[in-house]
């Protein structure tokens, strides 16, 4: 509970003589590490192993070295899927995080009526499963008994079908934004809560306006939380699967089997039985995601110092 700005307090985390170095800690960490090894490390190792082989109709499974990787790099379907999530990432994530930031600042400003109600309401969609959120929005988008159909009927206009091939990515972006804007807002708001209020008072006494306070105190305090939120959003975007997978039954023509890299890896395994190639696609995406997440983290940390 020690608030970050109390820099004068000797860091509670600093190792002290009282913390004896022994194996006792392993008794606490051990169970987690054991399960972690089974469901994280082993599959990573196994997929690297898989990616080095290929099953052919003639000759069975053979070691092919880096062949699968060369194939992914030249795979137009993979790159089209990758391009789609990259566009999604470039458009949806900034919109969502900016909204979350503005909302967090608005709530923290203490100038809202009903701030508590607002905070919890905006967060609620996070508790809605992606499947339910997608079904719900999918029905609302629908022209049959959805709101778009209703509006068209009521006003005698013809809005474009949100589930048409050229709009479906934006429609998915809206679903994801709806689900996660409150979650991100809460992460940012929590970070604002631990700022020492004395800083604001000092700033006000020095004649700083609200915008100046936001710029000079609140945004720097949010840097760590913002970089964490950004990293989670990047990972989430590259993993995009649930929404397109569920929407596929409502919009079969707009969503291909390689709509996102994850959907592509899934289709390769479960419709195509190409397990080795699918593992390779997953690894390539994983590496790209980690490189980008890592770069963002470094940027975030460098700015902090």
């Amino acid at each position, binding site marked *: 509970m020690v608030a970050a700005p109390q820099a004068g307090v000797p860091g509670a985390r600093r190792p002290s003589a009282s913390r004896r170095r022994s194996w006792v800690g392993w008794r*606490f960490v051990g169970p987690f590490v054991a399960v972690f090894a089974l469901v994280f490390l082993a599959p990573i190792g196994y997929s690297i192993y898989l990616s080095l082989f290929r099953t052919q109709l003639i000759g069975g499974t053979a070691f092919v070295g880096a062949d699968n990787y060369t194939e992914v790099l030249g795979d137009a379907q993979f790159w089209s899927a990758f391009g789609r999530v990259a566009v999604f990432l470039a458009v949806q994530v900034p919109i969502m995080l900016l909204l979350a930031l503005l909302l967090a600042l608005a709530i923290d400003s203490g100038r809202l009526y009903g701030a508590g109600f607002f905070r919890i309401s905006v967060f609620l969609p996070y508790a809605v499963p992606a499947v339910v959120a997608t*079904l719900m929005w999918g029905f609302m988008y629908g022209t049959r008994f959805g709101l778009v159909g*209703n509006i068209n009927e009521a006003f005698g206009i013809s809005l474009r079908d949100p589930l048409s091939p050229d709009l479906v990515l934006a429609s998915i972006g809206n679903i994801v934004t709806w689900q996660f804007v409150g979650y991100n807002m*809460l992460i940012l708001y929590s970070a604002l*809560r631990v700022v020492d209020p004395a800083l604001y008072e000092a700033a006000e006494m020095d004649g700083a306006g609200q915008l100046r306070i936001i710029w000079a105190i609140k945004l720097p305090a949010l840097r760590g939380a913002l970089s964490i939120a950004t990293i989670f959003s990047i990972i989430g975007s590259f993993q995009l699967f649930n929404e397109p997978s569920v929407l596929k039954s409502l919009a079969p023509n707009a969503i291909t089997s390689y709509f996102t890299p994850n959907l592509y890896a899934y289709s390769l395994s479960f419709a195509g039985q190409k*397990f080795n190639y699918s593992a390779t696609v997953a690894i390539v995406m994983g590496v790209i995601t980690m490189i980008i997440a890592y770069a963002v983290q470094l940027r975030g940390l460098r700015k902090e110092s």
Partner: protein
Amino acid sequence: MATTTPRVGHKPRTARHASASSGPLVVRPARRASRRKRRSATLTALTVIMLVYTLLPLAWLAINATKTQKGLFDSFGLWLDGDFALFGNIADTFSYNDGIFTRWLLNTVLYVVVGAGGATFLATLAGYGLAKFDFPGKKAVFATVIGAVAVPGTALAVPTFLMFSEMGLTNTPWAIIIPSLVSPFGLYLMWTFATDAVPKEILESARVDGAGEFRTFFRISMPMLAPGIVTVLLFNVVATWNNYFLPLIMLKDPDWYPLTLGLNSWNAQASTVGGEAVFNLVITGSLLTIVPLIVAFLLLQRYWQSGLSAGSVKG
């Protein structure tokens, strides 16, 4: 809803902690009071737009759960239809297809209780261990686990499926429960929380009194960790309750489906040849699926919000 919710579930114990953590407790209300005069109607109006965006789909779901399948097509989406069919829909949801919805609900509860409960326990133990003990390999453990947060979970799904299928675990509840037991984010949150919530002086005195480490953990540390545990538990419950990708891959037999997979299969059957469209049941089932989580979040918000604030200290 009060804006000045009490923020901590555990009291500061030492002078140092009191001075540090009473900031939000004591100073904030004063600041709030002075600001109350300056509430902004413009700002509130802007956030109302956001509120409409957030709540409209949920209202749509609740309204349309009261309609028959015919009513869905005939009536305006944001207003009630002539006949109020909510209770009929709920009864139909539970009885359709020999009551498989009940089975899915029980499966989900099983996955949540064992998976999310176990994940919270493991994360609490390990987070506490990382925060309070120095042991060989600690840095390696920490680096690996934090690195794993950045590994796309779904990238592991296919190899995990193949591994589990060789072990004979696919199409069993274990295939869902075991992967749910690990929550790197939960560990991170517990580690930051335990670092500050449990003063080392108390652990020292327990050691001096001759209490074993586990006894100290369960008797003394766990209660202090409560807000952090509730926070991690809620996030794990949401993750498990909402899980879709993993069950989709692991399970073939609808008898083991969780609610998410079941609802999607009801929706998908409308577009299969000869499949019966049951949109009213998909909508009512969706509503029934989200209600428990929303209730849990509302009831426990005091705890998880304070846990989240504490956890974000080092965000």
